[in-house]
């Protein structure tokens, strides 16, 4: 333990900037792995017409990943999946961690465009901030894949949740839940207002509400990705509307603050809490099982990781002109409830250290 700490400290001071050091380590591991795989996979492929081209398409390529931050389960799971395929097929993963800063993310992409990786996978806090850069990257011959959230530029692919449909599902669940409730009042708590989940999701809520005129949306507030802020919003709303039927949230990372507010108001079991997220075991499945959420719409990040890997390989094999043939892959929105969650296999990232 002590030796480990000393070693970590030393490597920390060597780099001073943890994200830089981490990125370097990741890049180093990638190069090493690529070397090992290249040496090991000198085997010949079965010439069925497509298999050799598949492996050749990947070999020696570089895929850059710009996450929101590397400090939460979603991005850690993505990287685990990306790294696994990269190691297997002999390409390199480069991570640039902007740690929740939109500015740093933009700078990271600017820098990457100079370095010319083959593919950039962007997981944006604020997709609109990347719009100009998508075209710039495409013009520089770099393919662009959006992970789970996008801006208005398409790039080459979007892989992730259909957040519009996701929130429509939550409204339908709430409508069902509120059929026999004292009131049909619902309240929407948004994520950060510039985030794609809030932009697409809120549109979904409003469109679906047209099909449920009985539901009364009594307010929309922004939780800004902060569970504590969500908790005080929920507490205020419950004082104002003690007969509220349900909360609709847009991300479990912040909506974990709703259940304590409901409990403090003495309304546990009387107010529905509908949220969604990446389906990580401790944050999603365990919380659904212990009753923090009435229902949880899961946009499985493990599956998304596989789908993004597939998109990378599809683009590298077909190599269209960058930005010319954008496509989308949406994962299934799976509803988890306290009743069905025990039958569901939840992923979890083992702690990286």
């Amino acid at each position: 333990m002590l030796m480990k700490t000393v070693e970590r400290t030393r490597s920390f001071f060597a780099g001073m900037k943890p994200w830089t050091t981490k990125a370097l380590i990741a890049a180093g591991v990638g190069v090493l792995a690529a070397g090992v795989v290249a040496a090991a996979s000198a085997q010949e492929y079965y010439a069925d017409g497509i298999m050799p081209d598949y492996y050749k398409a990947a070999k020696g390529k570089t895929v850059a990943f710009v996450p929101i931050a590397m400090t939460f389960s979603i991005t850690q799971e993505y990287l685990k999946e990306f790294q696994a395929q990269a190691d297997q097929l002999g390409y390199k993963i480069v991570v640039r961690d902007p740690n929740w800063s939109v500015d740093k993310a933009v700078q990271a992409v600017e820098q990457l465009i100079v370095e010319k990786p083959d593919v950039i996978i962007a997981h944006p806090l604020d997709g609109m901030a990347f719009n100009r850069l998508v075209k710039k990257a495409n013009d520089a011959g770099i393919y662009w894949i959006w992970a789970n959230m996008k801006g208005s530029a398409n790039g080459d692919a979007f892989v992730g949740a259909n957040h519009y449909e996701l929130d429509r599902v939550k409204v339908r669940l709430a409508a069902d839940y509120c059929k026999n409730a004292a009131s049909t009042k619902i309240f929407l708590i948004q994520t950060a207002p510039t985030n794609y989940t809030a932009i697409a999701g809120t549109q979904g809520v409003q469109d679906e509400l047209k099909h449920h005129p009985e539901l009364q949306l009594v307010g929309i507030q922004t939780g800004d990705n902060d569970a504590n802020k969500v908790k005080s919003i929920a507490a205020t709303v419950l004082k104002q509307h003690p007969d509220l039927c349900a909360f609709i949230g847009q991300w479990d990372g912040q909506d974990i603050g709703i259940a304590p507010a409901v409990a403090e108001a003495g309304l546990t079991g009387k107010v529905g809490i509908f949220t969604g997220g990446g389906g990580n075991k401790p944050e999603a499945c365990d919380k659904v099982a212990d009753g923090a959420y009435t229902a949880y719409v899961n946009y499985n990040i493990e599956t998304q990781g596989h789908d993004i890997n597939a998109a990378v390989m599809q683009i590298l094999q077909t190599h269209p002109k960058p930005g010319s043939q954008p496509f989308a892959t949406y994962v299934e929105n799976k509803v988890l409830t306290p009743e069905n969650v025990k039958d569901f296999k939840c992923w979890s990232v083992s702690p990286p250290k």
Partner: protein
Amino acid sequence: MRKTEGRAGGSEPSAASSERNDAAPRASLATRVLKDVDQQRIVLAIAVILFALFSIFLRGFADLGNILTLLQGVAIIGVLGLGMAIVIIGRGIDLSMIAVLVMPTAWMFVEVRNGMPIGTASLYGLVIAIAAGLLNGWLIAYLEVPSIFATLASGTIVYGTMQYLAVSDDIVPVPPQLAWTRPVFQSLSFGVPNVVIFLGIVALLVWLFLRFTVYGRFIYAIGDNPIAARTTGVPVRPILVLQYVISAVIALFAGVVLAATVSSANTRLFNSTMIYDVILVVVLGGVGLGGGKGKVSNVLVGTALIGILINGMTIMNLSFVAQNLIKASILLLAIIADSIVNPRDEQTSQQGDI
């Protein structure tokens, strides 16, 4: 010292207004009214007016339950504001408070989950907070780095080091061994949320410290005029270190309580605008940014006003952008009021202070 006490009390005229009084021996009614108007009273009046308006126009606002919710929502900001006030009275600022708020607690949760005894982990948490305070104090008192830069950097160092070494996730759930903290901090005593009681206890302790201890009085003296304080024999450098250690320890305790109330430590707060909210309640209540002026009641009044505003705006369902705009405008007004009510003292102010 006498002058300092008077100014701290906010009731004696400032140097500028006494000059004005000398020039016009027969003080007009306006001057006498002006003499009694300080920022705390202005803000208190605004808070009372807002409270009355919201009570009349917003259904359910004046309900006792809502008022407690309102206080609960800003209690942590208020506690941090008390720590920040000590530093600002001593003519400094502590931007590293959010790092100390989130990181030691998150680290304690990680270690307790990994099997470290709760007592040991808590002790280490306290050591980390005190070390952060000592680092700030050393940089500011002995190396004479301006506090705004020293604490900006030290906050990033505390956050970065601990994230790199120990806390890899930015949301750390309360470990099962500490599950008992949930009922403690999520429940009520005598009908009052325990978080609000926590604010009350910290306010009492800070009030006793500032009002009745020599060190507390020294902080006012240093904030009012550091050179004069040193000349009269006040140990300026150790007291500066002390004030940063106190603010760090207050941030640590606030962090533990905050984490217990939402069942997880959220280190992402470091990247949020929370530190501005803390400065907002301190400055809004009338603690002068120039140092030497301010009391616990200033912070409590500032906290109450922000609580009333946020609660009212949430009930009115204002958008995020509108809420931020209103909060920012109020901070600007408070800073303008601060510069009018507490004019810069040309004799003691120096270039580079905030």
